[in-house]
């Protein structure tokens, strides 16, 4: 391949669009995200290839392996385009029938369609499913639409138009102005205005500058950035190149956790293709502008997502935060002016350049504009990746898109911002998605992890879980975080073991306050948030543990009796069937009984009992 001119780019766009939007060609978009790979989409794709071949349909049916579609819990997923028919949980055995009915007879295979958990009805079209209907894909606009390993697919969807515009028509000032107008704020968690960040770095003096992309994504339950990289790697490269032009940098790094092998593979392919086309590297599109990107694989430490630690890690040093100032805009990577942005932040940039900052800012709340990607997980019906306009209520996120709570349980809380965030209780679910709005209720927007918890979740145990994570992931450098979170963890463990004392709650509050006030980096400063919000909204659960020695959610093993309440037991025997240790005796129409000698406290029966009869 030779370097492209503007004409070539336009030609490729037209050509590929011609194929990709040809109504006579059916495109089978098989999801190739990590989630669907894990559930077997590679085999399904193989079966599709064979079946299409066998039936001689190769001319009119194309198979496209896309990045993550978003509805990960139902994989392997397949979308039949242009009709938009949505198939879930496919197996390779289903494929002959699917091709026969869907492609040849043009009638969807009902049993393989999505079943609405509320209405129990099968829904054929992706757009009619409420999980998708309430979304507004911007950062994820190409998800499921393109083959991420084909640059032409990206170009066909207006890819690299922004680069042409930026390099040929815009000055750094114009770029930053557009970013400022868009009001885009950093999607990595803190929500710092991106235009302002770039402006600092642009004004910072220095011949060598760096553009860095944060793909460390260390929050438990978060997979937004991974999905973007897997589904649409070029948009991140393009966003970084635009940033480079804005601050006049010639070198960029993507700091990606090494566990994200598929993302890394696709990024590598994307970088190679972009270079071959002359859209990256020396003299981009003959404009005299040079910009190159390397991938740096991090070993997967949460703290390496913190900006100063991330830069030390790229420098080959121990990934440990250092005091700011100096800020990265002045002294970043190798002490040179640098900007660091999150994957999702960069992925929004090309569209802003094409459609304008005003377009981007046209949705959202007063201070939070545009859209936000969330990774919905936990006890919600529709687990997956979603993108909603700022201002969408959390209720809509959990109930309309998430489809409500699984297994007919009740909603208890949604944890936003992972180990740095807080849990939002039912009565605050009408809070709109937005940085200030969510901070006001004691959580943080964070990078988009949203873990939904049902009424079987013990909030003390949840707080303990996150504190355990923090203790493992603290870099150990500063006293309040290293020693303080250890003490908090010990106290929470003690409470979960039924040994809590009233003084412990006070100590937790005092430790939280001081750690927040005095820790060196964001990890420590926010480490107490899950505990504080749990104490604020679920104080009664703490009191139940500490004073009554009771775990209301029946999660804390030390406080469970492993007995069955004869009044609540409906004699169904589910517990009996679930016990791996044969510790339960039960006969039809009789109350079940647990033999404590044999019981191994595995909790299977608790999970199985529909009537909460075991305590």
């Amino acid at each position, binding site marked *: 391949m030779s370097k492209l001119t503007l004409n070539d780019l336009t030609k490729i766009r037209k050509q590929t669009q011609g194929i990709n939007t040809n109504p006579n060609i059916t495109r089978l978009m098989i999801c190739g995200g990590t989630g669907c790979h894990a559930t077997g989409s590679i085999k399904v794709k193989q079966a599709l290839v064979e079946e299409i071949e066998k039936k001689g349909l190769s001319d009119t049916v194309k198979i496209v392996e896309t990045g993550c579609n978003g509805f990960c819990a139902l994989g392997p997923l397949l979308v039949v385009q242009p009709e938009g028919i949505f198939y879930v949980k496919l197996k390779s055995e289903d494929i002959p029938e699917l091709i026969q009915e869907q492609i040849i007879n043009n009638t969807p295979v009902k049993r393989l369609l999505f079943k609405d958990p509320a209405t129990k009805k099968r829904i054929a079209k992706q757009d009619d499913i409420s999980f998708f209907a309430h979304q507004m894909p911007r950062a994820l606009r190409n998800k499921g639409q393109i083959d991420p390993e084909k640059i032409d697919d990206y170009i066909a969807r207006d890819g690299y138009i922004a680069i042409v515009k930026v390099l040929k028509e815009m000055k750094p000032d114009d770029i930053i102005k557009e970013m400022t107008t868009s009001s885009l704020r950093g999607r990595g968690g803190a929500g710092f205005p991106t235009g302002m960040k770039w402006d600092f770095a642009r004004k910072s003096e220095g011949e060598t500058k760096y553009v860095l992309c944060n793909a460390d994504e260390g929050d438990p339950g978060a997979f937004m950035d991974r999905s973007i990289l897997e589904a649409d790697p070029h948009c991140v490269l393009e966003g970084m190149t635009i940033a480079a032009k804005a601050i006049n940098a010639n070198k960029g790094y993507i700091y990606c956790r090494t566990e994200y092998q598929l993302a890394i593979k696709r990024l590598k392919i994307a970088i190679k293709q972009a270079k071959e086309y002359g859209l990256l590297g020396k003299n981009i599109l003959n404009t005299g502008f040079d910009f190159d990107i390397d991938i740096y694989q991090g070993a997967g430490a949460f703290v390496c997502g913190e900006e100063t630690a991330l830069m030390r890690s790229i420098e080959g040093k*121990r990934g440990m935060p250092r005091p700011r100032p100096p800020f990265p805009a002045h002294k970043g990577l190798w002490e040179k002016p640098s900007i660091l942005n999150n994957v999702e932040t960069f992925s929004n940039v090309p569209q802003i350049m094409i459609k304008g900052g005003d377009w981007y800012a046209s949705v959202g709340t007063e201070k939070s504009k545009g859209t936000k990607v969330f990774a919905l997980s936990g006890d919600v019906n529709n687990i997956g990746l979603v993108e909603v306009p700022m201002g969408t209520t959390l209720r809509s996120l959990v109930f309309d898109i998430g489809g409500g709570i699984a297994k007919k349980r009740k909603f208890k809380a949604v944890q936003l911002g992972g180990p740095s965030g807080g849990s939002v209780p039912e009565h605050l679910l009408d809070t709109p998605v937005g940085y200030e709005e969510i901070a006001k209720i004691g959580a943080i927007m964070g990078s988009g992890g949203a873990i939904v918890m049902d009424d079987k979740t013990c909030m003390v145990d949840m707080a303990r879980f996150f504190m355990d994570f923090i203790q*493992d992931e*603290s870099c150990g*450098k500063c*006293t309040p975080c290293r020693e*303080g*979170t250890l003490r908090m963890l010990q106290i929470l463990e003690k409470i979960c073991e039924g040994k809590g004392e009233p003084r412990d709650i006070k100590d937790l509050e005092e430790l939280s306050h*001081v750690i927040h*006030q005095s820790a060196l980096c964001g990890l420590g400063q926010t480490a107490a948030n899950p505990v504080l919000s749990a104490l604020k909204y679920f104080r009664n659960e703490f009191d139940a543990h500490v004073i009554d020695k009771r775990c209301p959610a029946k999660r804390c093993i030390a406080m469970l009796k492993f007995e069955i309440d004869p009044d609540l037991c409906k004699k169904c025997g589910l517990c009996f069937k679930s016990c791996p240790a044969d510790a339960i005796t039960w006969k039809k129409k009789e109350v079940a009984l647990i033999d404590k000698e044999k019981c191994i406290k595995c909790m299977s029966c608790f999970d199985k009992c529909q009537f909460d009869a075991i305590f």
Partner: protein
Amino acid sequence: MKNNKSITINGNQFSFRPEDTILEVAQRNGIFIPTLCHLKGTTPTGACRVCMVEVKGARSLVASCAAPAMDGMDVQTESSDVIRSRKLTISLLLSSGHHDCLLCPATGDCVLQQLAYRYKVSGTQFEASNARYPLENVNPFIIRDFSKCVLCGRCVQACNDIQVNNAIDLGYRGSAAKVVTAGDRSLKDSDCVFCGECIQACPVGALYPKDALNKPRYGETQKIRTTCSYCGVGCQMHLHVKDNLVQKVTGVDTAPNNGSLCVKGRFGYDFIASKDRLTTPLIRKKGKFCDASWDEALTLVAKKFTQIQKKHGSDSIGVLTSARITNEDNYIAQKFTRAILKTNNIDHCARL
């Protein structure tokens, strides 16, 4: 307005230099802010969080050792929030290991002990953590007692930023953090050259000379300033002396060494009181060394030199001097060789 930049600390205004931190302005003006991890001459790491101060308008407390002084800053060094944080931080450190001062070689000279006393923190708020790593004493010079380490990182700074030996760094995470060599091996199997800079930097009793446990502690010795006799650099050192015996050597923070010493200067002092040490000139008589006076010895040497010179000529004599004497002594030696012995055969071992 450029020259009128000022910062307010505890209600008083002070001017400052462009590169000053809050701590430096405070120290210059006699305002006490406690520090633990701060090590002069190195980039602040902001690790211990003992030096936190309150800055009006800041989101949280600010580490004064790392924060640049800025125009219009309004700083409180002992506000209630500062004290609240400082006390808890000290309390956390005291319970982070075995801080049993009675049996610690650093007692009296320990920053943590001083902090606990000043801020009246008993260290009983939390149960003391068990020692996570065993004490290391497998080299001839340094004992590493991890149960007393407060992970301030000063030793790491001393080793990497001052001595540039890069033998140690922080390893592991969370409360499992530890100062480690490459591969967490013992010092003797690492790049360590046993300069002991880390011992001197350690604010507590986590690093100490091998023999310290059997020696007098701080307060029992007298400090005597002297110049190191090992080489011509002229490092300034304190001999810590008790009963006319050197018990320990530390570097003095002044030119030329600014507090540093090398392995010989710091640890190589046992010769001073060695029984094998020569205390008087010896003259070999009938194959046996016999005590002599300086006059006797010098007269004999002068006589022999003159004889050799007469019989074999000046160039039959050569002089070799040593780096263990001063530049001035070396100068005199070459002068003596050329002017008195009348030969150019003068050389220097130029090593130790």
